[in-house]
């Protein structure tokens, strides 16, 4: 088994096929999209492949250390940030092929006009613990 992160981008991924911003969808279309995501997660829990999933607010703050005894410096949000993560799902599956298959299904979530968004999801393997037998 191996864990993979499926990353959903607000920005930074190639343009989806059905590229209409969510605020231009009908309320029913938004509800259908949410239901699809919810059902997808529930189905993966049922197959024993779900680990975690969260959506993220697009508003973020950059924070950095500013020296001993000083409060951290904050900056942003930067409107021009190229890569912006909308949310993620962690799955635990038998193979890379299965991870790609599931990402493909997640990308079929309905968007404007009730048609699949065909958005690009980024599939990233987790680094694991080292195996016991190495030679």
């Amino acid at each position, binding site marked *: 088994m191996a864990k993979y992160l499926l990353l959903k981008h607000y920005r930074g991924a190639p343009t989806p096929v059905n590229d209409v911003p969510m605020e231009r969808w009908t309320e029913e279309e938004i509800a259908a999209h949410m239901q699809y995501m919810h059902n997808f997660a529930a189905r993966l829990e049922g197959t024993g492949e*779900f680990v975690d999933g969260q959506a993220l607010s697009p508003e973020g703050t950059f924070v950095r250390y500013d020296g001993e005894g000083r409060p951290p410096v904050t900056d942003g949000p930067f409107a021009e940030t190229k890569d912006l993560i909308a949310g993620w799902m962690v799955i635990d599956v038998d193979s890379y092929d299965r991870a790609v298959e599931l990402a493909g299904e997640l990308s079929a979530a309905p968007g404007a006009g009730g048609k699949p968004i065909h958005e690009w999801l980024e599939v990233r393997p987790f680094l694991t613990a080292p195996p016991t037998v190495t*030679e």
Partner: protein
Amino acid sequence: MDEHRLRALTPSVIGALVRRGADFAAAEDAVQDALVEAVRLWATEPPRDPKGWLVTVAWRKFLDAARADASRRRREELVEEQPAPGPGASVDDTLQLYFLCAHPSLTPASAVALTLRAVGGLTTRQIAQAYLVPEATMAQRISRAKRTVSDVRFDEPGDVATVLRVLYLVFNEGYSGELDLAAEAIRLTRQLAAVIDHEEVAGLLALMLLHHARRSARTRPDHSLVPLAQQDRKLWDTRLIAEGVEILQTALARDRIGEFQAQAAIAALHADARTAEETDWVQVVEWYDELVGLTDSPVVRLNRAVAVGEADGPRAGLAALADLDPALPRHAAVAAYLHERDGDVATAARLYAEAARQASNLQERDHLTRQAARLNADPRGSG
């Protein structure tokens, strides 16, 4: 009675329920419930006959569950008519349970989960923590696995090779959570070796013991990896090594070689060497040749190239590497090592950095990054 001895009773208790007429899935659930009760009660009131106690309590749990399910009324009548069980053939039950939990219709992850629960007697929560997934996910994985094997007859003959692959997977998962999966795999393999006389079961057990013996030498306190050549061999567990070598020798004497015996033989040659320099690399290469013949695995060929590099020099190792697909995991790491030994420090540094980017685990990535940094800091490679 400690937890390990309690859990060791699990397979034979499940077997006893199945022979009384319970189906496997329900029997397994009932035994889990009985184990929870045993942990709670036995600390103050240990029973005289632990297995008898577990069978009685698990059977009652099974009947309760069957009664609670009105739609299963017919089966309830059936089970209540069952006569009291005769003396138990628990050795066969244990073996059958291993076969069932490693059934070829299961995916590797399902077989691992089901084996740890039904043969190992671990709770779903313990298994979920060990594999770093939510308990609900692991519960579903286990119940799906039970459904998958629900039509398999309990006494159907199985293939020991599928069981060994599952146990090897558990062992190789190593140590991630509270539960020591390597130790659990050793316990389950010992238990298997006690119920079936098979040279590859012995080979796998020897392999596990010989690797487990090196455990405390394998990582530094900061969890970074120590390569075999640099390990402090005084930290190796000589008792486990002696046991592993003895089991392996007995298995090899039967002259029915298999891949686990061959892997264990390589581990035993490393265990035999008091220092890395004393390693009998010529024999290690011979065992890799044997393994290539048995498995034809590209990963084995890759490890063989390292051994050839030690036995016949880095040029020979690089020649052995030349035939292999560069996309193989750890190919760049092996190439980096051989190039460094060959004195080509610049190529080695570049390949170590490439290998670090491809590493599938954090400790290995850190190790490889440090190798690249070491060579970049001292391009003559004397460091």
